């Protein structure tokens, strides 16, 4: 499997304003995180949800975000994190 990202890469979540079914929550759009692990490749839920076959498969990553970055008013410690599974087509490299 060739993937665009590897463990430890910094990535930004796209802010594409698309309608329809998707598994990228709005709260994480435009946030920067680090690839925590590669989960394998899976059929794309954005077409599966409409009776499509979900192909080509999309690499899926677990991306780790610092809570204090995701929520400017976060009440917790600076080390608290949130890990989210995100498909590759939602990610771009962080500059």
């Amino acid at each position: 499997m060739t993937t665009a990202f590897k463990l430890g890469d910094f990535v930004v979540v796209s802010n594409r304003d698309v309608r329809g079914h998707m598994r990228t929550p709005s709260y994480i759009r435009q946030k920067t995180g680090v690839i925590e692990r590669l989960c394998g490749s899976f059929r794309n839920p954005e077409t599966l949800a409409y009776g499509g076959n979900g192909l080509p498969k999309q690499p899926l990553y677990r991306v780790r975000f610092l809570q204090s970055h995701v929520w400017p008013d976060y009440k917790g410690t600076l080390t608290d994190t949130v890990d989210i599974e995100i498909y590759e087509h939602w990610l771009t490299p962080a500059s």
Partner: protein
Amino acid sequence: MPHDHPHGPTIDAKRLAHYQCMAVAVQELLTEKGILTDKQIEATIKEMEARGPALGARMVARAWIDSNYKRRLLLDGSAAAEELGIPVDGTRLIVVENNETMHNLIVCTLCSCYPRNILGLPPDWYKKTAYRSRAVKEPRAILAEFGTFLPDSVTVRVHDSTADMRYLVLPTRPSGTEGWTEQRLIELVSRDSMIGVRTAKQAES
């Protein structure tokens, strides 16, 4: 003005009947068309009823007493479940470990993804918006509502199950349980401790 009930709004009997009728109608139509049988529905219900937190508790207790099993569990949760004879039916299970510096909490903000093959059907609060909305942004406040108070020396790591992975927390083994049998340890492993909203039960002194 609807009658107020201390546990929330009263169930509208008519509405309930509407959706129950819909469920029966769908099942009857699918059965008549030969798409499924009542027997298959009954068997599926039985299969689901056989799943529950006792399965996850076995995995946790085993990991507490067997460091090699724990290593395999953290590496590949699905394989480690199957190793104990717990079928996961293709679920990709990620097990995350709590310790004195790390506390993990599982949520699905978009729906209610849950390791149902290991823990059975989720509790009501896991599926409702209060938990789903807030667990990701104010996990420490949520934990406090479950009676779990963590010092700032413990990092809280939330896992939002948004896609194809399912999560199980490996809670910290309670102190004072050295030398306990696996069977006795299983009793300390609650469902909630494997979701991460509580710690494992403490050993009674």
